[in-house]
């Protein structure tokens, strides 16, 4: 979708719908910037309510984009989320697809 590959609106349908939601995109970006984080940290970093975060974390986990584990951190049980290699790849693919579309719209 550059000069050699002009914008094809049909490609927009290829956008990953799991990541395309602003809420899940926020979560993915947060998890991309840390190795792992607990539920509280992600709540603050995304400004999401606990219920909303919980529902969207489950969707991302079902898609295989994140891994959720119960771990003991400093002897306290925590719900820890981390991005998986599949999730990283999906986010990169998403940005590779969306980036040129946005670039062409700006021109």
């Amino acid at each position, binding site marked *: 979708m550059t000069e050699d590959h002009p914008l094809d609106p049909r490609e927009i349908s290829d956008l990953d719908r799991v990541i395309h939601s602003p809420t899940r995109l926020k979560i993915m970006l*947060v998890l991309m*910037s840390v190795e792992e984080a607990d539920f509280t940290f992600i709540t603050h970093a995304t400004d999401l309510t606990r219920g909303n975060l*919980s529902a969207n974390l489950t969707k991302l986990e079902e898609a295989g984009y994140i891994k959720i584990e119960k771990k003991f951190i400093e002897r*306290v049980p925590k719900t820890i989320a981390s991005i998986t290699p599949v999730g990283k790849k999906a986010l990169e693919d998403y940005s590779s697809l969306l980036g040129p579309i946005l670039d062409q719209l700006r021109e």
Partner: protein
Amino acid sequence: MNDQITEQTKQLRKQYARTFHNDGLLDFFVGWAIVSAGIYLLTSSMIFSFAGWMPILLIAPLKRHFVIPRFGYAKFSKSAPIPRPVLIGAGAVILIGSILVSVLGSQGFRIPLIVGLLGLALLFALGKGFNRVSVYAIFIPLFFIVGLGLNVLTPALIMLMGGVLMALGVYLFVKFLQKYPPEPEEEDGLS
């Protein structure tokens, strides 16, 4: 666009690390260590040479008790090494600063020059996004080596500086507690 993601995540990481250290604990205990050093210089009492640094051991338990439950836990990957131009720039500033201090130092410009240079170094470090630990690790030895080496630091001035940091620590800690109230126990609905 992938570069943009990398840049975004780098910025986020810096922002989280800064917030994590913005609880005032480090500032308070570094301030106390400086106050103790001032008292030690004034009284030569050995107690204060230890009393200053011992409470720093409390930072980790206090973080566990107050900060992590409120702000949350995150593990950051190792940050990239400091870029060479930044290191060269910092070296040049120290070199030029030393020359300026030695040339103009005898003409009564010593204190304003040192304060100015230390202030610039602090602003530079904070502006580059170094976290508080790195900033204090650079700033405190410089403060004492330069200040005491040039005989411009009095115990009163040292205690004043420590007091200011302690007050800053208390202020930041109260702000942190207000901004991040206690979180409910693990009610995340995730199995």
